[in-house]
């Protein structure tokens, strides 16, 4: 099997498993919607305050934590059912496993965002940003790739340790802060000011660079992270 076929096979396996049980997606979506309610009450210090400027930050905090939930689930299943052992016994390049798992997590995160972004926008953003949809979608995609690549690498490490899901946020959150800064800034610009490509382009380039650096770093270290 070629690398591409292996990649597709692992990705398909992850998607089918999730579609059959739906436990990860459902809990992630519920978490996101609940977070919205919590944010509303956390930030409404004055009646009917305009939260447009906070929405970018709320969204990305929610996505990061939803992703932590998902990452823990996705690897716990692999580990508990000994699926990973089977995968490692197959003549598959470890890096192919990494890219397939990253892609799978990316799909789940995108599904969450398809639900969350319209709802958050409806409830919090008080101006139309349809004209800035394209730069916004690019921000989403680029930030997601960075989150999923780094998250997959660190989840692989943490699932092999004693404390598992307890460890992942501690490793993941300080590393992902740069993405959070860039993505939040860009999202807030889009939601609150509506500026087109001009002002978000620096943040887009930054996210692109982040993705490239950590995809390469993960590519170089994943062999060691996943173990023998």
């Amino acid at each position, binding site marked *: 099997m070629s690398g591409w076929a292996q990649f597709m096979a692992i990705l398909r396996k992850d998607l089918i498993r999730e579609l059959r049980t739906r436990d990860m997606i459902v809990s992630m979506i519920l978490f996101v919607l609940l977070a919205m309610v919590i944010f509303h009450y956390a930030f409404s210090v004055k009646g009917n305050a305009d939260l447009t400027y906070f929405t970018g930050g709320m969204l990305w905090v929610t996505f990061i934590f939803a992703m932590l939930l998902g990452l823990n689930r996705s690897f716990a299943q692999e580990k508990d059912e000994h699926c990973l052992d089977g995968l490692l016994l197959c003549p598959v390049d470890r890096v192919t496993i990494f890219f397939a798992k990253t892609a799978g997590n990316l799909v789940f995160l995108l599904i969450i965002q398809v639900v969350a972004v319209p709802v958050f926008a409806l409830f919090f953003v008080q101006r139309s940003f349809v004209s800035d949809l394209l730069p916004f979608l690019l921000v989403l995609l680029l930030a997601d790739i960075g989150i999923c690549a780094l998250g997959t690498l660190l989840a692989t*490490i943490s699932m092999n340790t004693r404390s598992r899901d307890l460890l992942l946020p501690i490793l993941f959150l*300080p590393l992902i802060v740069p993405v959070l800064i860039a993505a939040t800034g860009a999202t807030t610009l889009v939601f609150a*000011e509506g500026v087109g490509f001009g002002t978000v382009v620096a943040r887009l380039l930054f996210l692109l660079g982040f993705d490239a650096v950590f995809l390469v*770093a993960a590519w170089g270290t994943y062999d060691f992270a996943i173990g023998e």
Partner: protein
Amino acid sequence: MKKLVSAPALFLGAGAFLIIGVVLAFWYSPIDASSMGFSQKIFYYHAPIAETALVAFGISFVAAIAYLRTQNLKWDRLSVVCVRLGLLFSILVMATGMIWGKAAWDSWWDWEPRLTTFLLVCFLYAAYFVLRSVVDEEQRRATYAAVFAIIAFIDVPITFFATRFLPAGMHPAVITSGGTGMPGSMFLSFFLSMIGMTLLLVALIRRDLQIETLKDRVSDLKTALGG
């Protein structure tokens, strides 16, 4: 291995440079002309500590790569010793930075890019030790720690860049002083302090490495004795 310089000599050398540095900083270097005034004196310790912390993390990064390539545990020992010292120096950077901030701008904490980066660095490398503590098998612990040390060190300049050039929201960075043009009388004190601090790091790394090696031998002996 033949030792070129004995450990006490390194410590003494570090102490001498640091003392001369601080004496010159107070009695030779001029009072800073900007608004910082006298409080700028802490710079002669603050900046060398920061530089030394980054050097320590840099060494741990290189040692981590060396470990992954050779699987020789001596590189893991070097890496963990450097991260530990780097973390200690980073905490000192935060402490001196906060003191300086209080004296110069009258606030203990400002989301200034360099200080924020060091705050995140502290979290990052504290996580490194959490990671080490939850893996029991020695080789596996060393491997995971090495992977994380590599990722963490790559993240440091990116974090600095993000906090410096992509400030949250719409506000521009408040403090942008680069501090590049230093007069010679300031540079001498700074330079001597930096040499002193670097010597101190080398001395501490050597001492900690010896302790780690001794620890390993003790545990080996214990196992050999059936304990």
